[in-house]
């Protein structure tokens, strides 16, 4: 039984045909164009762009980040050009790359989510919508849409009704168990799931006794969260059948492969882009090498292959 020299790397994530299972995490890769000066972005399985809401949004005051052991905390605050700005400024260039584009969207009300989804629905080159539910639900007093299964379901359903694109809710990690969230999202119409987002965290400057971040609270990302995300991905894969895009602390092929083994169909490189922009390409190569070394014909053999 000879394994093929070049294993099959293509995957289909809820309708997105990716040439390999590696994308980038929203907010860590700008709008695709910035890193195009540094790496061959055409090699990516997909490009996931920074979160977009209906209108342009200024984000938070500075400082917006702080380095911490094993990662960083960010409170960029979802600065962005709004739907129209995004389509006008970035989609022409993004289309040229010939890579599926996943647009990360958010809002502070169900209506806003739905409206953003509708406006992106027929834009050529947009392949899927990733729904960021880790942002404040203004109507519900600022609680996040992502930490209550019913609220999550309502956002997914609202978006689902207004688009034919694949809908990929991106789940928050600060929950007791991922199962109920994964099921709620899928029942509401999710084609795939992304997980996870950053973990809410805080840093204090002990000399000034002030929060380091102007926003006080931010999201922890990087190596520190990898093993927490891995558990969530595993739990989600046990709970639902839709494909999962896994992220959290991928710094090389090792973490990506662990996510695939735990049940992910694709992976996204986040914080590591800042440290080594070639990380997504190294991950692609590393997964391929692993498949060859383990005589696997296709990356799909890896997905969910955990022996327990």
């Amino acid at each position, binding site marked *: 039984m000879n394994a093929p020299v070049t294993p099959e790397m293509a995957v289909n994530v809820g309708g997105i045909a990716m040439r390999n299972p590696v994308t980038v995490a929203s907010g860590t890769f*700008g709008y695709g164009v910035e890193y195009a000066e*540094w790496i061959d972005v055409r090699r990516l399985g997909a490009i996931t762009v920074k979160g977009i809401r209906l209108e342009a949004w200024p984000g938070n005051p500075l400082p917006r980040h702080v380095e911490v052991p094993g990662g960083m905390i*960010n409170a960029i605050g979802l600065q962005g050009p709004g739907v129209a700005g995004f389509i006008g400024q970035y989609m022409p260039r993004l289309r040229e790359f010939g890579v599926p584009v996943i647009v990360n969207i958010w809002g502070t009300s169900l209506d806003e989510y739905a409206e953003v989804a509708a406006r992106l629905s027929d834009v050529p080159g947009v392949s899927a919508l990733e729904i960021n539910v880790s942002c404040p639900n203004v109507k519900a007093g600022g609680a996040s849409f992502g930490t209550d299964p019913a609220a999550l379901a309502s956002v997914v359903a609202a978006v689902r009704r207004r688009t034919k694109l694949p809908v990929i809710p991106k789940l928050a990690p600060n929950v007791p168990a991922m199962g109920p969230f994964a099921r709620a999202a899928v029942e509401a119409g999710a084609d795939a799931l992304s997980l996870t987002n950053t973990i809410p965290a805080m840093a204090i400057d002990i000399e000034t006794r002030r929060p380091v971040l102007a926003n006080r609270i931010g999201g922890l990302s990087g*190596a520190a969260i990898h093993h927490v995300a891995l558990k969530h991905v595993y739990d989600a894969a046990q709970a639902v059948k839709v494909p999962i895009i896994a992220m959290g602390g991928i710094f090389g092929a090792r973490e990506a492969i662990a996510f695939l083994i735990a049940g992910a169909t694709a992976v996204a490189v986040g914080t590591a882009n800042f440290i*080594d922009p070639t990380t997504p390409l190294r991950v692609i190569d590393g997964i391929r090498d692993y498949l060859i070394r383990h005589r696997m014909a296709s990356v799909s053999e890896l997905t969910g292959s955990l022996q327990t």
Partner: protein
Amino acid sequence: MPICDAITLKHVPLTGGYRLLRLQAPAIAGPARPGQFVHLRIPGLEPTALRRPFSIYRAEAGELSILYKRVGRGTEMLATLQEGTTVSLMGPLGNGFPLTDGTTKPVLIGGGYGVAPLVFLASRLPRKGVILMGGRSAGDLLCIEDFEALGWPVETATEDGSRGTRGYVTALLERHLESTDAAPELFACGPDGMLRAVGARAIATGCRAWLSLDHHMVCGIGACLACIQKVHTPGGGTRLARVCKDGPVFEAREIVWKEPS
């Protein structure tokens, strides 16, 4: 743009806790312009540590140098770097200073490690000018010989009076602007307070001031939006510029200073 594995050619301590690091990095040194910076991955920090930005101090014959000060855990670790070790660099990054057309007289204003890019600038400007240099004390005055070697007069100010005029470098600037006949054009790099003062003075005088901002950075290439600065747009509005990509150099009139908090 290149991500280089650069070899450490020389690494020597200077006065006042500053250090000079010379790297072999032809792909970056070649295209580098004054005011641009490199984003450096510090060997010995954990592999998940963020890069650190440093202004380019010299770039010639395939070599690239930076001048830095030990201020935190990254620069502490950098200070232990052995010659011969490889360092990952991204660059050249940022817009850099404009090289002007020679119709104005360049006045460079630098504080601390802020003089590093000004040396590079002085070496490339089409016309000689003057460098006004400030620091807490004599040990913080760097690169005086570099400017002298380029034939640039150096005026110094120290807060403790240990060298040059006692006080801030902006006092030198005041005096200079009052006494000069030439149309001055200012180029400044240093602490935030100094940049504000230089900018305010330039606006009052009606000359241009190119200020290199020192915002904390993550990606260094315009993707993460960690380093934004509110700037005026030509249309009378404002926008959020990225210091790493749209800067680090801005003309004083562009910058919307936030209230000192």
